């Protein structure tokens, strides 16, 4: 039945977006995670990616979380001589996480999640309508 397939396809979208939310939550939670000492690097921002694949069972192109890569941009450096992770000049490396960017990403994930939920609701209503023919 095609309707069930529609629901399954939308469910893959839900799964992909919730995986993305997990990565965003990780980034925001670690926005201030510095390293223990000056020799090691602090937390590096992680970037989720999406991949399309053809599901033979569903006969449709579904979406899934691709590889989670790390953001290679420079760390933010702040001068805090008293910090345990400060180097000789008193500079501390902070993670390359920009909370504003993460918040925007989060809104986008939320919007997409809601759109997928909408598809499921609409499809369910259509199934219910079809079943109602029996009652006529």
């Amino acid at each position, binding site marked *: 039945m095609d309707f069930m397939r529609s629901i399954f*396809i*939308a469910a893959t979208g839900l799964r992909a977006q919730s995986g993305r939310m997990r990565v965003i939550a990780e980034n925001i939670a670690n926005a201030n995670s510095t390293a223990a000492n000056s020799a090691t690097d602090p937390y590096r921002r992680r970037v989720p990616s999406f991949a399309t694949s053809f599901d033979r069972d569903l006969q449709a192109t579904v979406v899934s979380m691709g590889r989670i890569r790390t953001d290679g941009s420079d760390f933010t450096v702040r001068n805090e001589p008293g910090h345990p992770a400060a180097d000789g000049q008193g500079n501390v490396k902070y993670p390359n996480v920009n909370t504003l960017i993460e918040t925007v990403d989060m809104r986008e994930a939320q919007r997409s999640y809601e759109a997928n939920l909408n598809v499921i609701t609409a499809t369910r209503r*259509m199934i219910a309508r079809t079943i109602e023919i029996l009652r006529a």
Partner: protein
Amino acid sequence: MSVTELPLFSMLKTRMRWLETRQRLLAENVANAETPGFRGRDLKAPDFTRQLQAATSVQLVATSPGHLAGTTQTDPNFAADRSQPFEVTPRGNSVSLEEEMMRIAQNQTDHQTATALYSRSLGLIKSALGKK
């Protein structure tokens, strides 16, 4: 001839199958709304005159037990079409969520119309049978 083979019912059935397939394509679009390089698709509107011909065409009658049942009633295969994108993002994605939501709502209404017509037609047959 069973009830489901009546032209009206078979037409409505085709319509519902079309809407069902379209819903699947729209679900695909929404699921891949953020995938780089994904191009949205939509179902081509069925050719009404051809559908009507198929539904009301003359069929061969098996007059002898040796006759094979004809398969003139071909299953309509619907063609997927690349929908005209409103915009294509730099990542190569052409899905616009607003547009998809609108299409889904429209699909839902159309489906509701088809099912309502179906149950109405069933009601017609029931009154012809003389049952309340």
